[in-house]
């Protein structure tokens, strides 16, 4: 086993890896940007190496700096987390060539799954069902028209180099094909520098279901069941659960077998996830994520397995030591991503300084976080601040528990996705399990709460007055003149004056 590993990441995932490693008696090396000198991962590692620079392109995305830090500190292996360089085959190879162990899949498997068309070809050849459509790029709009006729409308035009929802156009009929092709091609070229497009049949009311896999380096592989990730917007997930209301045990095992087949076809090792689209009782391969995923904790909660620990054990060459029938599932888990974004304003990013934290606790509540009081939330890094995960004996209990935990939570200084998640959890259709990947986009987040409007408005007015009093007690230069008179009066009277709700409560 390793004595020391380097974690090439930041935020909640860096801390997540540090925690498992510490439990295994392994020392951790953190790397950090100028911006992250006070970050939790920097503080909680055994050794921290500054990489310099504020932007990710100057630190977390520079393979040479990270490998040099590993060599200098005597780390034996590198855990990439998710995002940043985690699916960069060149980095995985460079780590290996530097005599270090890569805690992840072989570079060849990352490459094989990285190209959408190549992976479709590989999967089709391996007998894995893919979304009906092409496995080669189409030359032009005319060829696309002919192919679309064969596949059947509606059609999704996708960029071969695509990702993150860019370069995708949904076309309902032949009339819209040419313009759809043109705009998708332009977007693919500008986003990825690669204008190649292919066509897929656009599935009706799809759900996003994925299977967690682990392969050791001795040819043994197991699946860890499914996660349902259909609550998403612009391909960014908000809430995930395990298992899924639409997947019974037989289907779970069938999907698991297919996922294992997909992994074996590319010589997979370590942890990975096969994503499927599920529609009308059938499932189709979408892509494979060759890394640990953000939502891995829901699988951990229902299987009682520390997936990061397994990743490190596998990378160290240990055999899994158990077989498929040893993987057991119990209860239901839900995760909510707490992103710095403003759901009042169409989920635009929210920036500010974190304060006024109130963190939830209690039975079966887990909080994986990277935030701390005083943390600056800017635009340069991923907006994910923390993940709230709960376990329940069944889905209803998990939903009730997550609602309770979200009600306890407060993250001040920025807007977060928490109220949006709460709206999902309270929705009748979500509770019934009747939803697809379009659910969140269609959810009306505008209308919320009225019950406590009066109380909240009154409290806000009192708060303003108290703040004013406090500021009047400690006057500073440059204070707004308009305040002064009112504050002096408030101070003189020294009472809680009647505060009246004047403005519109929103």
């Amino acid at each position: 086993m390793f004595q020391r590993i380097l974690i090439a990441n930041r935020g909640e995932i860096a801390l997540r890896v540090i925690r498992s490693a510490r439990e295994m008696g392994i020392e951790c090396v953190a790397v950090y940007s100028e911006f992250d000198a006070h970050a939790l991962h920097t503080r909680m590692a055994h050794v921290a190496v500054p990489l310099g620079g504020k932007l990710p392109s100057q630190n977390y995305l520079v393979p040479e700096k990270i490998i040099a830090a590993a060599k200098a500190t005597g780390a034996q292996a590198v855990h990439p987390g998710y995002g940043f360089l985690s699916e960069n085959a060149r980095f995985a190879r460079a780590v290996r060539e530097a005599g270090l162990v890569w805690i992840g899949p072989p570079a060849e498997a990352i490459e094989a799954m990285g190209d959408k068309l190549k992976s479709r070809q590989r999967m089709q050849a391996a007998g894995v069902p893919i979304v009906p459509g092409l496995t080669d790029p189409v030359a032009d709009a005319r060829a696309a028209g002919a192919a679309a006729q064969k596949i059947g409308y509606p059609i999704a035009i996708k960029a071969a180099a695509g990702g993150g929802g860019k370069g995708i156009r949904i076309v309902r009929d032949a009339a819209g094909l040419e313009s759809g092709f043109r705009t998708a091609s332009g977007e693919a070229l500008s986003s990825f520098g690669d204008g190649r497009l292919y066509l897929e049949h656009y599935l009706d009311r799809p759900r996003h279901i994925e299977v967690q896999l682990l392969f050791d380096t001795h040819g043994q592989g197991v699946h860890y069941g499914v996660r349902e990730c259909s609550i998403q917007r612009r391909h960014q997930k908000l809430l995930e659960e395990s298992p899924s209301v639409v997947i019974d045990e037989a289907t779970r095992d069938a999907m698991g077998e297919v996922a294992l087949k997909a992994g074996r076809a590319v010589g997979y090792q370590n942890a990975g996830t096969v994503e499927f689209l599920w529609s009308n009782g059938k499932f189709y391969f979408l892509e494979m994520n060759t890394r640990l995923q953000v939502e891995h904790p829901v699988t951990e909660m229902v299987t009682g397995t520390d997936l990061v620990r397994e990743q490190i054990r596998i990378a160290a060459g240990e055999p899994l030591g158990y077989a498929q029938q040893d993987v057991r599932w119990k209860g239901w888990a839900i995760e909510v991503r707490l992103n710095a974004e403003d759901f009042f304003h169409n989920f635009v990013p929210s920036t500010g300084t974190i304060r006024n934290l109130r963190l939830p606790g209690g039975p079966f509540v887990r909080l994986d976080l990277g935030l701390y009081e005083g943390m600056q939330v800017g635009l340069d890094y991923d907006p994910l601040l923390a993940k709230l995960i709960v376990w329940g004996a069944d889905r209803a209990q998990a939903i009730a528990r997550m609602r309770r935990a979200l009600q306890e939570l407060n993250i001040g200084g920025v807007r977060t996705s928490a109220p949006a998640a709460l709206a999902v959890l309270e929705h009748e259709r979500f509770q019934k399990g009747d939803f697809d990947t379009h659910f969140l986009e269609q959810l009306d987040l505008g209308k919320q709460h009225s019950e406590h409007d009066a109380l909240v408005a009154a409290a806000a007015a009192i708060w303003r007055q108290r703040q004013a009093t406090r500021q009047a007690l400690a006057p500073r230069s440059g204070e707004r003149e308009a305040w002064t008179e009112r504050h002096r009066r408030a101070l003189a009277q020294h009472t809680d004056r009647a505060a009246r709700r004047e403005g519109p409560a929103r």
Partner: protein
Amino acid sequence: MVRVDGQPLELSYEEVDEHGQVSALCAGRSYALSLEGSPDRVSVTLAGLHYEIGLEDERERAAHAAERGGGKGGGIVNAIMPGIVVELLVQQGQTVERGQPLLILSAMKMQNEIAAPQGGVVERIHVAAGQAVSAGAKLVTLAVGVAAGP
């Protein structure tokens, strides 16, 4: 005792700390509130739900009313989020319709078209392509109520 919409509301209000944690008792029930913000805009979180409260006292209300009455305001388009101006889609002096994209603002993974909230003539453009802007920054001033061009 406070009055809300003319109705009396009996409320006990205790600040738990100096950061914005507040304990309120009202009608025999206990509420744990989190408050923060500026004097005219207070954010309140109660039981996971978020409330944005706009506050103005009598003097401020009079001032705001005068501003609106003067035909000013409403013509300035602000950045709803911090970001970078990718591209300007209009020019000074140009007549725009309501909903017409004025510029593209990029923040993290998203490019957002910022549309005209109402029709008018572009009086002034406050930003240039490539410029970083903070939330609330002035982007474009529209002269509204001006007769559209020929």
